[in-house]
């Protein structure tokens, strides 16, 4: 194995391959920044270029484009609330509020540091354990995925602060309902398509996120007339400082470390991927936060930005485990890369790192350089990129509209999607005016589809019996954690009240936790 790593290292440091890393990262970041154009489009664009390269260089280029796009996607999420790609939708939850609070510079820098850490930790784990991790990829069966998505849904329990819980739940269920539109995989029957051809493939997640976030936000701005008032205010000041204080670093460090490892593991599972990882990491971070901090989520919490950003980059690195060691693509993007590898006559699988050590290890080693390149490339660019906010609103708003709509159209090439975006946007604006939060709907939608598929698969496999919930240890463990997450907040006030009765002067559960901004 050490021989292999050395071969990989020599391949990876070849000047041409280093150049490919830089080119890939640059192209990926740039395409990723455009709203709606994510890693799939970026990697697909690279296919014709890679034909002329040798396998290592080609895959190094594609990998660079892939994690570059995930890296760059956060920029438009933070600055204009228009997610660059599916896996950076969650980044907008707290990133955009930060930018609105004139902390765009800090938000972008934090996203860059988190992405860098996530990607680097992922690459380190990959280097030391890639062949061994194959078994992790295969340890999850349908029932486990179902339980995991169930656990993810608990994140919504306290999604939107006080008094909003009911609204958040309604929106989650709304999201679950939208996820049922389209062809049901298990029966093959179309559901809730109203006889329309265009709904047979269901609703795309990116379309939903674009409509409810980018478009609804922009139209709201116009409706409120902000485009006239705020112009003089939007000055250089909007960038804010890029520096994080010591306390902030202290607050973020555990989050980034946790989310990186967690995101990597989710990425290794072929049935999950970077988008799921970002949602789950965000939910995990919320559940771990103190009651006081929970209220800040969705309003510009640094932890709420760091968690999904570390997780999605770690997950996209993790998705190379099933791709390289099993030949199983976990996402559309890695499926394209698998196609490219096979076109080179290289079959990914358990023997790849023995048969083609140069390809296997050089790709993994190139990821270190890649993440470093991304950081070096992105940090100095932040002041320039965030000048985007200085663009006068009358110009910026049409630009956002244009890029959001073309971004979604360029994925499907179906004009119906544009009509659907408009309808969803109108609906989202109405719901926003009534103070319904949008994030829980996206959570319900993305987790709901996978949850339902896996549940019906698990039920088919077990001939309709729900016994899998307690018969498989892994499933059982996740279900128990889910129940704990749900029940502890209900029980803990009772417990602390019981304690509080003994210590009469104690004010309540919230003060019991002294963790926080210190």
């Amino acid at each position, binding site marked *: 194995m050490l021989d292999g790593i050395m071969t990989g290292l020599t391949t990876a440091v070849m000047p041409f391959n280093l150049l490919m890393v830089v080119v890939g990262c640059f192209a990926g970041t740039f395409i990723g920044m455009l709203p709606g154009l994510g890693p799939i489009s970026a990697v697909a664009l690279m296919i014709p270029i890679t034909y002329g390269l040798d396998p290592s260089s080609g895959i190094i280029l594609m990998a660079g484009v892939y994690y570059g796009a995930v890296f760059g996607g956060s920029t438009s999420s933070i600055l204009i609330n228009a997610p660059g790609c599916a896996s950076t939708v969650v980044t907008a939850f707290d990133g955009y509020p930060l930018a609105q609070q004139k902390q765009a510079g800090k938000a972008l820098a934090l996203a860059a540091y988190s992405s860098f850490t996530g990607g680097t930790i992922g690459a380190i784990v990959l280097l030391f354990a890639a062949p061994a991790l194959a078994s992790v990829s295969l340890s999850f069966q349908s029932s486990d995925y179902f339980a995991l998505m169930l656990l993810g849904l608990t994140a919504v329990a306290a999604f939107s602060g006080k008094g909003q819980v009911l609204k958040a739940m309604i929106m989650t269920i709304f999201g679950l309902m939208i996820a049922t539109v389209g062809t049901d995989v298990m*029966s093959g029957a179309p559901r809730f398509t109203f006889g329309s051809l265009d709904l047979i493939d269901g609703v795309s997640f990116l379309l939903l996120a674009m409509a409810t976030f980018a478009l609804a936000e922009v139209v709201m701005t116009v409706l409120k007339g902000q485009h006239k008032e705020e112009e003089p205010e939007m000055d250089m000041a909007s960038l804010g400082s890029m520096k994080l204080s010591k306390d902030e670093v202290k607050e973020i460090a555990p989050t980034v470390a946790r989310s990186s490892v967690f995101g990597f593991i989710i990425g290794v599972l072929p049935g999950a991927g970077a988008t799921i990882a970002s949602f789950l990491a965000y939910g995990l971070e919320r559940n771990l936060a103190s009651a006081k901090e929970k209220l800040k989520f969705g309003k510009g919490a640094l932890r709420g930005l760091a968690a999904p950003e570390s997780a999605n980059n770690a997950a996209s690195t993790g998705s190379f485990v099933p791709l390289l060691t099993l030949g199983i693509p976990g996402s559309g993007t890695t499926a394209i890369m698998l196609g490219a590898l096979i076109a080179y006559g290289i079959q990914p699988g358990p023997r790849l790192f023995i048969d083609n050590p140069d390809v296997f290890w050089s790709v993994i080693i190139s990821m270190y350089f890649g993440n470093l390149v991304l950081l070096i490339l992105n940090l100095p660019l932040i002041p320039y990129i965030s000048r985007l906010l200085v663009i006068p609103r009358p110009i910026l708003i049409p630009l956002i509209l244009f890029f959001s709509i073309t971004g979604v159209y360029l994925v499907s090439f*179906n004009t119906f999607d544009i009509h659907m975006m408009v309808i969803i946007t109108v609906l989202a604006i109405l719901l926003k005016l009534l103070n319904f939060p949008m994030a829980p709907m996206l959570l319900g939608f993305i987790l709901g589809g996978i949850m339902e598929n896996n549940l019906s698969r698990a039920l088919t496999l077990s001939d309709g019996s729900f016994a899998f919930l307690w018969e498989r240890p892994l499933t059982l463990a996740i279900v128990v954690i889910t129940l704990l997450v749900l029940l502890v907040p209900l029980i803990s006030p009772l417990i602390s009240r019981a304690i509080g009765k003994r210590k009469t002067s104690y004010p309540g559960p919230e003060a019991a936790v002294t963790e926080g901004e210190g």
Partner: protein
Amino acid sequence: MSFKLSAAKKSTILATALAGCLSAGASFSAMALDSVHFLIPGGAGGGWDTTARGTGEALHKSGLVDTVSYENMSGGGGGKAIAHLIETAGQKQDTLMVNSTPIVIRSLSKVFPQSFRDLTPVAATIGDFGAFVVRDDSKYQSFNDVVADFRNNPRSVKIAGGSARGSMDHLVAAMAFKAAGGDPRRVKYVAYDAGGKAMAGLLSGEATVLSTGFSEALSLAEAGQVRILAMTGEQRSDAAPHVPTLRELGYDAAFVNWRGFFAAPGISNEQKAEFVETLRKMYDTPEWETVRARNGWAETFKPDAKFVAFLEEQEQSVGDLMRELGFLK
């Protein structure tokens, strides 16, 4: 559904050699098409997309077609593009739409109201078979073992596939077990939303057999994690001569998943003949060989009338099976 690859190839070579000699004379420019516009009913990176772009690349680089353009239009499982091609047929004289077996299945199940009869079938160009795959450490050594288990207890055989119930992977499995004398409705088909995920389901041990495409199965088997028990061709493939066909094992079933091209309805016979001739010539160009090898495609050229006859035959057999499975009334 018989097609003899080697014989067809020989005659193709002859025909193109002849055509080549003739066109070397005066009529070369008359034989090269000015432009072909490829209509792709799905998004970038999918099977239809690679087929159209690969074919376009070969046609253009070999000089058979001067300009090649592409248009992706997804929606409705391909129905959107079909409707578009029919509606705008008048301005689509140079358009070739790529499609494959699902056009037959989806028009039978009324996903879209049109069928291949509403278009001008030009030719099937490449094909793949179905294959049944098990984990390397599986107890099944032959497809006969699977059938024996199925006869004892149909629910014990869990068949994974990368597409919804009622689509190709499911139908191929149902076809095989029906030919083995079983009840196709009792086949326990576990649907995954992508081929890769179905493979993960097989490797994780929750499914026992994977129903997938033969070329995909070959590359998976090459990696050493799975074995191919049987394939649905008429005869063994040169790429994997050790894999038996269902017929050899005594099950009268064969299936080919073709990919091919359709033109707009109502194009002239000359135009159609030109399309057919251009595609026929493509097979002998080194540019096509590059594209074909890169993608691992198997050639199966069925032009014009042969294509139509083949489509009718497939519609009949797939339709019978779907009726039996209860997908059609």
